[in-house]
């Protein structure tokens, strides 16, 4: 039996969660205040994921960059590959919040979407 101590990152409460494991099986999850914390803990011990937020180049816009995020969280070990793809990409103004800027980022199957509007010049 192995106990793993985690801090839930899903909200600012930052609950301390203890996951008890037997090999790959989760025996119990304790310390979470809500369901999101339970799901976080189960994911975190098996395949941790994170949302990546960064900026992407814009051409012909009122500003040169637009902020963006992966629409869903990507596997933690893919974060730097995702960043590399985003840093090489660019998009054209106008951009609206939610516009898809990259489809299937770095083979994760996950979209990159704009989080800010940029008007064109």
């Amino acid at each position, binding site marked *: 039996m192995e106990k793993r101590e985690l801090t839930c990152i899903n*909200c600012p409460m*930052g609950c301390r969660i203890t996951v008890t494991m037997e090999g790959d099986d989760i025996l119990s999850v304790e310390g979470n205040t809500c369901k999101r914390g339970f799901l976080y803990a189960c994911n975190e011990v098996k395949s941790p994921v994170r949302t990546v937020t960064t900026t992407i180049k814009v051409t012909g816009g009122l500003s040169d960059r637009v902020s963006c*995020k992966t629409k869903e969280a990507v596997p933690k070990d893919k974060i730097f590959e995702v960043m590399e793809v985003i840093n090489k990409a660019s998009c054209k103004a106008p951009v609206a919040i939610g516009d898809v800027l990259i489809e299937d980022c770095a083979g994760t199957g996950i979209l990159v979407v704009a989080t800010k509007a940029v008007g064109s010049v």
Partner: protein
Amino acid sequence: MKADIVIVGGGPAGLAAAISAAKEDKSLDILILERDNELGGILNQCIHNGFGLHTFNEELTGPEYAARFEEQLDGLGIRYMLGTMVLDVSSGSVTAINSKEGVFKVNCGAVVLCMGCRERPRGALNIPGLRPAGVFTAGTAQRLVNIEGYMPGREVVILGSGDIGLIMARRMTLEGAKVKCVCELMPYSGGLKRNIVQCLDDFNIPLLLSHTVIDIKGKERVTSVVIAEVDERSKPIPGTEQEIACDTLLLSCGLIPENELSRSAGVEINPSTNGPVVNESFETSIPGVFACGNVLHVHDLVDYVSEESGRAGRSAARFVKNKATAEGPVIKIRNGNGVRYTVPSFVRVNELSDDLVIRFRSGNVYKDSYIKVLFDGETKLSRRKPIITPGEMEQVILKKEDLANTPSEILIEIAER
């Protein structure tokens, strides 16, 4: 120029105050004055997610959160002027300047101060050493990276473990920089736990508690910094010095509410928050001048800023309608053991429209303690908390009925076991 309510600053506090004032009374003419060239305040550079969980039940980035509020302005007939800096505030008017109108005056029924806060600059921290390029506040670096798209450096040491410092440790790492460590003077971090996990632990960035920067080296550009461990009185301990090669030092050493305008208007300032002293309606010592958001006290959660500012906006709307400030009993709120300050500072019972939310911060880390509320020395409420830290704002909510017997004083304290 004329308006019923002038809002100084168009960040999340100003937006929420304007919107709820307009919803309280549709006939009011509300004007937001913002010195930047866009609304949204500090949220424009906070491109990370984590905003809006309380308000919208989903995790948004800063710009997305701001947009949810900006969308509502037109429909509510709220006016705003960008690139407009407010120079002077008094109880019936506001003086501002912009390139189109020059200096102009707006006569108004009420003013809401929403100027936010600024970072403590290096000068205030007294680090010895030369003055080379490469020393930035974390917020300045955040603006450079996220808005201008410019990297301030490649090898980074961060002093201060407030949220901005933690967020920037991750941001610089994602953009290819090497963050060598985060030094924190105190024995605990000033940032949220979730940020320590997802910004430092995820990338194996060491957090050195009870450490500070004692020297900055380099002539033209920073070449290294010397760090050392500190004792309980924050004095560097001889023999613990380490030199760390780096080209950039980021400072994340706290925020100071931006109250130059409030001070020159004669608003009474609470020395513990550096923000105005306010009552239950978020009204300052000058009738008709309200304050909310980071200009009032530093918040770590924008959701609380929006909620508080909503109350302030509604109060301003009611003030414009009713004018006279209420007579009646006043309850003083005092901070007792372990509590650094409370907002508000006093309550006019007759003016209370719903439950009373008292927000405060502790002065130290307390494990397994109780938050206690005493009415005239008698315990009214006692809530157990596994951990209380100065980095996280606490609150207690008192029911309006509970205040009906009007104690003369409410005391908030932390009792250790």
